[in-house]
Protein backbone atom coordinates (compact mmCIF):
# COMPACT_ATOMS: atom_id res chain seq x y z
CA UNK A 1 0.00 0.00 0.00
CA UNK A 2 1.21 3.50 -0.81
CA UNK A 3 0.06 6.94 0.09
CA UNK A 4 -1.33 9.21 -2.58
CA UNK A 5 -1.45 12.88 -1.87
CA UNK A 6 -2.84 15.24 -4.42
CA UNK A 7 -4.78 18.45 -4.39
CA UNK A 8 -8.14 17.76 -5.92
CA UNK A 9 -10.28 20.59 -7.22
CA UNK A 10 -8.06 23.27 -5.84
CA UNK A 11 -9.13 23.09 -2.26
CA UNK A 12 -6.44 22.39 0.27
CA UNK A 13 -9.08 20.94 2.56
CA UNK A 14 -9.70 18.38 -0.12
CA UNK A 15 -6.04 17.46 -0.40
CA UNK A 16 -6.37 13.80 0.04
CA UNK A 17 -4.27 11.20 1.71
CA UNK A 18 -5.38 7.66 1.28
CA UNK A 19 -3.80 4.32 1.34
CA UNK A 20 -4.12 2.78 -2.07
CA UNK A 21 -2.85 -0.27 -3.86
CA UNK A 22 -0.14 0.96 -6.29
CA UNK A 23 -2.08 -0.45 -9.25
CA UNK A 24 -5.04 1.84 -8.49
CA UNK A 25 -5.86 3.91 -11.56
CA UNK A 26 -6.36 7.63 -11.14
CA UNK A 27 -10.00 7.25 -12.18
CA UNK A 28 -10.56 4.53 -9.58
CA UNK A 29 -8.97 6.75 -6.96
CA UNK A 30 -11.21 9.66 -7.94
CA UNK A 31 -14.42 7.64 -8.11
CA UNK A 32 -13.97 5.00 -5.44
CA UNK A 33 -11.71 6.62 -2.85
CA UNK A 34 -12.82 10.22 -3.19
CA UNK A 35 -16.38 9.35 -4.22
CA UNK A 36 -16.29 11.97 -6.96
CA UNK A 37 -18.38 10.07 -9.47
CA UNK A 38 -18.71 12.80 -12.10
CA UNK A 39 -15.64 11.40 -13.84
CA UNK A 40 -16.86 8.43 -15.86
CA UNK A 41 -15.34 5.19 -17.08
CA UNK A 42 -16.54 4.49 -20.59
CA UNK A 43 -14.32 2.31 -22.71
CA UNK A 44 -11.55 1.86 -20.13
CA UNK A 45 -9.07 1.72 -23.05
CA UNK A 46 -8.22 5.42 -23.58
CA UNK A 47 -10.44 5.73 -26.63
CA UNK A 48 -13.59 7.46 -25.37
CA UNK A 49 -12.38 10.28 -23.11
CA UNK A 50 -15.24 10.02 -20.57
CA UNK A 51 -12.60 9.86 -17.82
CA UNK A 52 -10.84 13.09 -18.85
CA UNK A 53 -9.62 15.23 -15.95
CA UNK A 54 -7.01 17.99 -15.73
CA UNK A 55 -3.66 17.28 -14.10
CA UNK A 56 -1.61 20.43 -13.53
CA UNK A 57 -3.84 22.17 -16.05
CA UNK A 58 -3.52 19.56 -18.80
CA UNK A 59 -6.33 17.26 -19.92
CA UNK A 60 -5.41 13.61 -19.33
CA UNK A 61 -7.25 10.31 -19.45
CA UNK A 62 -7.53 9.17 -15.85
CA UNK A 63 -8.20 5.55 -16.87
CA UNK A 64 -4.75 5.30 -18.43
CA UNK A 65 -2.61 6.40 -15.55
CA UNK A 66 -2.00 5.35 -11.98
CA UNK A 67 -3.16 7.45 -9.07
CA UNK A 68 0.46 7.46 -7.94
CA UNK A 69 1.51 9.16 -11.18
CA UNK A 70 -0.59 12.11 -9.99
CA UNK A 71 1.30 12.28 -6.70
CA UNK A 72 1.85 15.93 -5.82
CA UNK A 73 -0.16 17.19 -8.77
CA UNK A 74 -3.19 19.45 -8.89
CA UNK A 75 -6.10 17.48 -10.25
CA UNK A 76 -9.32 19.08 -11.42
CA UNK A 77 -12.39 16.96 -12.02
CA UNK A 78 -15.76 18.00 -13.44
CA UNK A 79 -16.90 18.70 -9.87
CA UNK A 80 -14.18 21.34 -9.57
CA UNK A 81 -15.36 23.51 -12.47
CA UNK A 82 -18.41 25.16 -10.93
CA UNK A 83 -17.54 28.05 -8.64
CA UNK A 84 -19.74 29.18 -5.77
CA UNK A 85 -22.69 27.24 -7.07
CA UNK A 86 -22.49 28.78 -10.55
CA UNK A 87 -21.79 26.54 -13.51
CA UNK A 88 -18.51 27.03 -15.36
CA UNK A 89 -19.27 28.92 -18.61
CA UNK A 90 -18.53 25.74 -20.57
CA UNK A 91 -21.00 23.77 -18.48
CA UNK A 92 -23.57 26.54 -18.93
CA UNK A 93 -22.99 26.50 -22.70
CA UNK A 94 -23.47 22.70 -22.86
CA UNK A 95 -26.69 23.14 -20.90
CA UNK A 96 -27.99 25.96 -23.09
CA UNK A 97 -27.04 24.37 -26.41
CA UNK A 98 -28.21 20.93 -25.29
CA UNK A 99 -24.76 19.58 -26.04
CA UNK A 100 -25.72 16.21 -24.65
CA UNK A 101 -28.37 13.56 -24.71
CA UNK A 102 -27.66 10.69 -22.32
CA UNK A 103 -24.92 12.71 -20.63
CA UNK A 104 -22.43 9.91 -20.15
CA UNK A 105 -19.66 11.51 -22.21
CA UNK A 106 -20.43 15.02 -20.97
CA UNK A 107 -17.99 15.33 -18.03
CA UNK A 108 -15.05 14.33 -20.24
CA UNK A 109 -16.37 16.36 -23.15
CA UNK A 110 -16.57 19.48 -20.95
CA UNK A 111 -13.08 18.93 -19.51
CA UNK A 112 -11.60 18.55 -23.00
CA UNK A 113 -13.54 21.57 -24.26
CA UNK A 114 -12.24 23.75 -21.43
CA UNK A 115 -8.71 22.66 -22.32
CA UNK A 116 -9.20 23.31 -26.01
CA UNK A 117 -10.33 26.92 -25.51
CA UNK A 118 -7.55 27.52 -22.97
CA UNK A 119 -5.04 26.40 -25.63
CA UNK A 120 -6.75 27.94 -28.62
CA UNK A 121 -9.30 30.60 -27.69
CA UNK A 122 -10.02 31.37 -31.35
CA UNK A 123 -10.41 27.76 -32.47
CA UNK A 124 -12.33 27.34 -35.73
CA UNK A 125 -15.11 24.78 -36.03
CA UNK A 126 -12.65 22.41 -37.69
CA UNK A 127 -10.13 22.91 -34.89
CA UNK A 128 -12.81 22.32 -32.26
CA UNK A 129 -13.78 19.04 -33.91
CA UNK A 130 -10.16 17.96 -34.14
CA UNK A 131 -9.43 18.89 -30.53
CA UNK A 132 -12.36 16.73 -29.41
CA UNK A 133 -11.29 13.68 -31.39
CA UNK A 134 -10.33 11.89 -28.18
CA UNK A 135 -13.86 12.17 -26.81
CA UNK A 136 -16.60 9.95 -28.17
CA UNK A 137 -20.30 10.75 -28.01
CA UNK A 138 -22.73 8.07 -29.22
CA UNK A 139 -25.87 10.22 -29.03
CA UNK A 140 -25.55 13.75 -30.31
CA UNK A 141 -23.67 13.48 -33.58
CA UNK A 142 -21.44 16.18 -32.02
CA UNK A 143 -23.19 19.18 -33.62
CA UNK A 144 -24.58 20.62 -30.39
CA UNK A 145 -21.34 19.89 -28.59
CA UNK A 146 -19.45 21.97 -31.14
CA UNK A 147 -22.13 24.67 -30.88
CA UNK A 148 -21.71 24.72 -27.11
CA UNK A 149 -17.97 25.23 -27.40
CA UNK A 150 -18.57 28.02 -29.92
CA UNK A 151 -21.12 29.66 -27.63
CA UNK A 152 -18.69 29.58 -24.74
CA UNK A 153 -16.06 31.02 -27.07
CA UNK A 154 -18.37 33.80 -28.29
CA UNK A 155 -19.22 34.72 -24.70
CA UNK A 156 -15.60 35.63 -24.29
CA UNK A 157 -15.63 33.88 -20.99
CA UNK A 158 -12.37 32.76 -19.47
CA UNK A 159 -11.96 29.08 -20.14
CA UNK A 160 -9.40 28.38 -17.46
CA UNK A 161 -10.37 25.56 -15.22
Amino acid at each position, binding site marked *: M*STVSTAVNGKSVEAVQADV*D*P*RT*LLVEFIREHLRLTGTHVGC*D*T*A*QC*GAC*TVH*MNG*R*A*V*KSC*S*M*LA*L*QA*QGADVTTIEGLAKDGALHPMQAAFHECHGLQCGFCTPGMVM*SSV*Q*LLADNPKATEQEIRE*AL*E*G*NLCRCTGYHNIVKAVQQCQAGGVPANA
Partner: protein
Amino acid sequence: MYSTNYHRASSLKDAQALFKKAGDGKFVSGGQTLLPTMKQRLAAPSDLIDLRHVKDLKGIKVSGKKVTIGAATTHAEVATNDKIVKVCPAICSLASHIGDPAVRHMGTIGGSIANNDPAADYPAAMMALGATIHTNKRQIAADKFFKGMFETALKDGEIITAVEFSAPKKAAYSKYPNPASRYAMCGVFVADHGKGDVRVAVTGAGNDGVFRHKAMEKALAADWSPEAVASAKVNEGDMLSDIHGNEAYRANLVRVMAKRAVAAAG
Protein backbone atom coordinates in the same frame (compact mmCIF):
# COMPACT_ATOMS: atom_id res chain seq x y z
CA MET B 1 -4.06 -5.27 -13.83
CA TYR B 2 -1.74 -7.54 -11.87
CA SER B 3 -0.21 -6.22 -8.71
CA THR B 4 2.78 -3.89 -9.12
CA ASN B 5 4.88 -1.38 -7.22
CA TYR B 6 5.44 2.23 -8.18
CA HIS B 7 8.60 4.26 -7.70
CA ARG B 8 9.22 7.81 -8.83
CA ALA B 9 12.84 8.28 -9.87
CA SER B 10 14.38 11.62 -8.95
CA SER B 11 17.47 11.24 -11.15
CA LEU B 12 18.97 8.89 -13.71
CA LYS B 13 21.14 7.33 -11.01
CA ASP B 14 18.13 6.82 -8.83
CA ALA B 15 16.25 5.25 -11.76
CA GLN B 16 19.09 2.78 -12.37
CA ALA B 17 19.32 1.88 -8.69
CA LEU B 18 15.56 1.31 -8.49
CA PHE B 19 15.70 -0.84 -11.62
CA LYS B 20 18.47 -2.99 -10.19
CA LYS B 21 16.55 -3.56 -6.99
CA ALA B 22 13.35 -4.53 -8.81
CA GLY B 23 12.65 -8.14 -9.65
CA ASP B 24 11.08 -7.52 -13.01
CA GLY B 25 11.12 -3.74 -13.31
CA LYS B 26 9.99 -1.60 -16.19
CA PHE B 27 10.54 2.07 -16.83
CA VAL B 28 7.41 4.11 -17.39
CA SER B 29 7.26 7.60 -18.83
CA GLY B 30 3.83 8.76 -20.05
CA GLY B 31 2.55 5.22 -19.77
CA GLN B 32 0.08 5.67 -22.61
CA THR B 33 1.00 2.28 -24.04
CA LEU B 34 2.33 0.53 -20.94
CA LEU B 35 -0.63 1.22 -18.67
CA PRO B 36 -3.27 -0.02 -21.16
CA THR B 37 -1.04 -3.07 -21.80
CA MET B 38 -0.86 -3.78 -18.07
CA LYS B 39 -4.61 -3.36 -17.76
CA GLN B 40 -5.04 -6.05 -20.41
CA ARG B 41 -2.62 -8.22 -18.42
CA LEU B 42 -0.29 -8.42 -21.40
CA ALA B 43 2.47 -6.94 -19.24
CA ALA B 44 2.97 -7.50 -15.52
CA PRO B 45 6.12 -5.75 -14.29
CA SER B 46 6.82 -6.20 -10.58
CA ASP B 47 7.87 -2.57 -10.35
CA LEU B 48 7.27 0.58 -12.36
CA ILE B 49 10.01 3.19 -12.30
CA ASP B 50 8.58 6.54 -13.32
CA LEU B 51 11.00 8.65 -15.38
CA ARG B 52 8.67 11.59 -15.98
CA HIS B 53 10.12 13.67 -13.19
CA VAL B 54 13.81 13.22 -13.98
CA LYS B 55 15.16 16.67 -14.85
CA ASP B 56 17.95 15.36 -17.10
CA LEU B 57 15.35 13.88 -19.44
CA LYS B 58 13.47 17.08 -20.02
CA GLY B 59 13.83 20.02 -22.33
CA ILE B 60 14.21 20.96 -25.96
CA LYS B 61 17.32 22.57 -27.40
CA VAL B 62 17.66 24.03 -30.88
CA SER B 63 20.99 25.41 -31.90
CA GLY B 64 21.29 26.28 -35.56
CA LYS B 65 20.02 23.17 -37.30
CA LYS B 66 20.75 20.84 -34.42
CA VAL B 67 17.66 19.76 -32.50
CA THR B 68 17.86 17.90 -29.20
CA ILE B 69 14.70 16.67 -27.52
CA GLY B 70 14.78 15.24 -23.99
CA ALA B 71 13.28 11.77 -23.71
CA ALA B 72 10.58 12.82 -21.23
CA THR B 73 9.29 15.56 -23.54
CA THR B 74 5.59 15.06 -24.27
CA HIS B 75 4.09 14.93 -27.74
CA ALA B 76 2.16 18.12 -26.91
CA GLU B 77 5.41 19.91 -26.05
CA VAL B 78 7.05 18.85 -29.32
CA ALA B 79 3.93 19.77 -31.30
CA THR B 80 3.84 23.32 -29.97
CA ASN B 81 7.53 24.14 -29.61
CA ASP B 82 8.32 27.47 -31.29
CA LYS B 83 11.98 26.68 -31.85
CA ILE B 84 11.52 23.27 -33.47
CA VAL B 85 8.71 24.49 -35.71
CA LYS B 86 11.09 27.02 -37.27
CA VAL B 87 13.64 24.42 -38.34
CA CYS B 88 11.68 21.19 -38.65
CA PRO B 89 7.90 21.74 -38.74
CA ALA B 90 7.38 18.17 -39.97
CA ILE B 91 8.15 16.63 -36.58
CA CYS B 92 5.83 19.12 -34.83
CA SER B 93 3.06 18.20 -37.23
CA LEU B 94 3.73 14.50 -36.65
CA ALA B 95 3.60 14.99 -32.87
CA SER B 96 0.34 16.94 -33.16
CA HIS B 97 -1.36 13.93 -34.75
CA ILE B 98 -0.33 11.23 -32.28
CA GLY B 99 -3.34 9.80 -30.45
CA ASP B 100 -5.51 12.63 -29.18
CA PRO B 101 -4.88 15.76 -27.07
CA ALA B 102 -5.10 13.99 -23.70
CA VAL B 103 -2.75 11.23 -24.84
CA ARG B 104 -0.31 13.86 -26.15
CA HIS B 105 -0.19 15.52 -22.72
CA MET B 106 1.17 12.30 -21.19
CA GLY B 107 2.95 10.35 -23.93
CA THR B 108 6.65 11.07 -24.44
CA ILE B 109 9.08 10.76 -27.33
CA GLY B 110 11.41 8.53 -25.30
CA GLY B 111 8.59 6.18 -24.38
CA SER B 112 7.37 5.99 -27.95
CA ILE B 113 10.69 5.04 -29.47
CA ALA B 114 11.67 2.69 -26.62
CA ASN B 115 8.42 0.80 -27.21
CA ASN B 116 8.89 0.79 -31.01
CA ASP B 117 5.30 -0.08 -31.78
CA PRO B 118 5.18 -1.08 -35.46
CA ALA B 119 2.45 1.53 -35.98
CA ALA B 120 3.96 4.35 -33.90
CA ASP B 121 4.78 7.63 -35.66
CA TYR B 122 8.07 8.72 -34.09
CA PRO B 123 10.19 5.77 -35.28
CA ALA B 124 9.59 6.86 -38.89
CA ALA B 125 10.70 10.40 -38.06
CA MET B 126 13.84 9.17 -36.28
CA MET B 127 14.85 6.99 -39.26
CA ALA B 128 14.12 9.63 -41.91
CA LEU B 129 15.79 12.40 -39.93
CA GLY B 130 18.87 10.24 -39.37
CA ALA B 131 18.48 10.87 -35.65
CA THR B 132 20.88 9.77 -32.94
CA ILE B 133 19.34 8.17 -29.86
CA HIS B 134 21.19 9.09 -26.67
CA THR B 135 21.01 6.74 -23.73
CA ASN B 136 22.58 6.77 -20.28
CA LYS B 137 25.29 4.52 -21.73
CA ARG B 138 25.91 5.43 -25.38
CA GLN B 139 24.67 7.00 -28.61
CA ILE B 140 22.91 4.87 -31.21
CA ALA B 141 22.05 5.79 -34.80
CA ALA B 142 18.32 5.43 -35.49
CA ASP B 143 19.08 2.96 -38.31
CA LYS B 144 20.66 0.63 -35.75
CA PHE B 145 18.26 1.40 -32.93
CA PHE B 146 15.02 0.00 -34.36
CA LYS B 147 15.30 -3.77 -34.62
CA GLY B 148 11.83 -4.90 -35.64
CA MET B 149 8.41 -5.07 -34.01
CA PHE B 150 8.64 -3.80 -30.43
CA GLU B 151 12.39 -4.47 -30.53
CA THR B 152 15.18 -1.96 -30.11
CA ALA B 153 18.92 -1.97 -29.48
CA LEU B 154 18.29 -0.99 -25.85
CA LYS B 155 19.87 -3.32 -23.31
CA ASP B 156 18.18 -4.32 -20.08
CA GLY B 157 18.05 -1.30 -17.80
CA GLU B 158 19.29 1.15 -20.45
CA ILE B 159 17.43 4.47 -20.50
CA ILE B 160 16.91 6.79 -23.46
CA THR B 161 17.89 10.28 -22.38
CA ALA B 162 17.37 12.32 -25.57
CA VAL B 163 17.12 12.23 -29.34
CA GLU B 164 19.17 14.49 -31.56
CA PHE B 165 18.98 15.27 -35.25
CA SER B 166 20.00 17.83 -37.77
CA ALA B 167 17.03 19.61 -39.34
CA PRO B 168 16.68 18.62 -43.01
CA LYS B 169 16.26 21.04 -45.92
CA LYS B 170 12.68 19.91 -46.19
CA ALA B 171 10.56 17.13 -44.77
CA ALA B 172 7.00 16.00 -44.26
CA TYR B 173 5.07 13.14 -42.71
CA SER B 174 1.86 11.78 -44.09
CA LYS B 175 -0.16 9.11 -42.35
CA TYR B 176 -3.30 7.16 -42.92
CA PRO B 177 -4.63 6.63 -39.40
CA ASN B 178 -6.84 3.78 -38.39
CA PRO B 179 -10.13 5.57 -37.70
CA ALA B 180 -10.62 3.87 -34.32
CA SER B 181 -7.17 3.61 -32.78
CA ARG B 182 -5.57 6.50 -34.68
CA TYR B 183 -2.42 4.42 -35.02
CA ALA B 184 -0.87 4.61 -38.46
CA MET B 185 -2.06 1.98 -40.93
CA CYS B 186 0.72 3.51 -42.93
CA GLY B 187 2.82 6.57 -42.25
CA VAL B 188 5.63 7.83 -44.48
CA PHE B 189 8.22 10.38 -43.39
CA VAL B 190 10.29 11.89 -46.20
CA ALA B 191 13.32 14.11 -45.61
CA ASP B 192 15.68 15.83 -48.01
CA HIS B 193 18.98 16.49 -46.26
CA GLY B 194 20.59 18.02 -49.34
CA LYS B 195 23.44 16.81 -51.56
CA GLY B 196 21.44 13.77 -52.66
CA ASP B 197 20.88 12.54 -49.11
CA VAL B 198 17.19 11.67 -49.13
CA ARG B 199 15.57 9.43 -46.54
CA VAL B 200 12.16 7.79 -46.66
CA ALA B 201 10.91 5.85 -43.62
CA VAL B 202 7.70 3.88 -43.41
CA THR B 203 5.76 2.95 -40.28
CA GLY B 204 2.52 1.03 -39.74
CA ALA B 205 2.74 -0.93 -42.97
CA GLY B 206 5.77 -3.21 -42.69
CA ASN B 207 5.49 -6.68 -41.13
CA ASP B 208 8.69 -6.10 -39.16
CA GLY B 209 8.19 -2.57 -37.96
CA VAL B 210 9.59 0.68 -39.28
CA PHE B 211 11.82 0.49 -42.38
CA ARG B 212 13.54 2.71 -44.93
CA HIS B 213 12.45 2.47 -48.53
CA LYS B 214 15.74 2.68 -50.41
CA ALA B 215 14.22 2.62 -53.92
CA MET B 216 12.07 5.63 -53.10
CA GLU B 217 15.08 7.41 -51.61
CA LYS B 218 17.00 6.86 -54.83
CA ALA B 219 14.10 8.01 -56.98
CA LEU B 220 13.61 11.16 -54.91
CA ALA B 221 17.30 11.99 -54.88
CA ALA B 222 17.15 12.08 -58.68
CA ASP B 223 13.76 13.81 -58.92
CA TRP B 224 12.04 15.25 -55.82
CA SER B 225 8.44 14.97 -56.97
CA PRO B 226 5.34 12.94 -56.07
CA GLU B 227 5.53 11.29 -59.51
CA ALA B 228 8.98 9.94 -58.68
CA VAL B 229 7.58 7.66 -55.98
CA ALA B 230 4.25 6.89 -57.65
CA SER B 231 5.57 3.88 -59.49
CA ALA B 232 8.04 2.69 -56.84
CA LYS B 233 7.89 -1.02 -56.22
CA VAL B 234 6.66 -1.89 -52.73
CA ASN B 235 7.08 -5.56 -51.92
CA GLU B 236 3.72 -6.91 -50.75
CA GLY B 237 5.48 -9.78 -48.99
CA ASP B 238 7.02 -7.28 -46.55
CA MET B 239 3.68 -5.75 -45.61
CA LEU B 240 1.42 -6.29 -42.61
CA SER B 241 -1.94 -7.90 -43.16
CA ASP B 242 -4.80 -7.63 -40.68
CA ILE B 243 -8.53 -6.99 -40.55
CA HIS B 244 -7.92 -3.33 -41.40
CA GLY B 245 -6.05 -3.95 -44.63
CA ASN B 246 -4.24 -6.69 -46.49
CA GLU B 247 -0.72 -6.64 -47.96
CA ALA B 248 -1.75 -5.20 -51.32
CA TYR B 249 -3.78 -2.46 -49.69
CA ARG B 250 -0.90 -1.46 -47.43
CA ALA B 251 1.63 -1.59 -50.26
CA ASN B 252 -0.52 0.86 -52.16
CA LEU B 253 -0.88 3.04 -49.05
CA VAL B 254 2.92 3.28 -48.83
CA ARG B 255 3.02 4.77 -52.34
CA VAL B 256 0.07 7.09 -51.70
CA MET B 257 1.40 8.36 -48.35
CA ALA B 258 4.86 8.85 -49.86
CA LYS B 259 3.36 10.91 -52.70
CA ARG B 260 1.39 13.02 -50.25
CA ALA B 261 4.41 13.54 -48.01
CA VAL B 262 6.61 14.66 -50.91
CA ALA B 263 3.89 17.03 -52.11
CA ALA B 264 3.46 18.43 -48.60
CA ALA B 265 7.20 18.95 -48.16
CA GLY B 266 7.15 21.00 -51.37
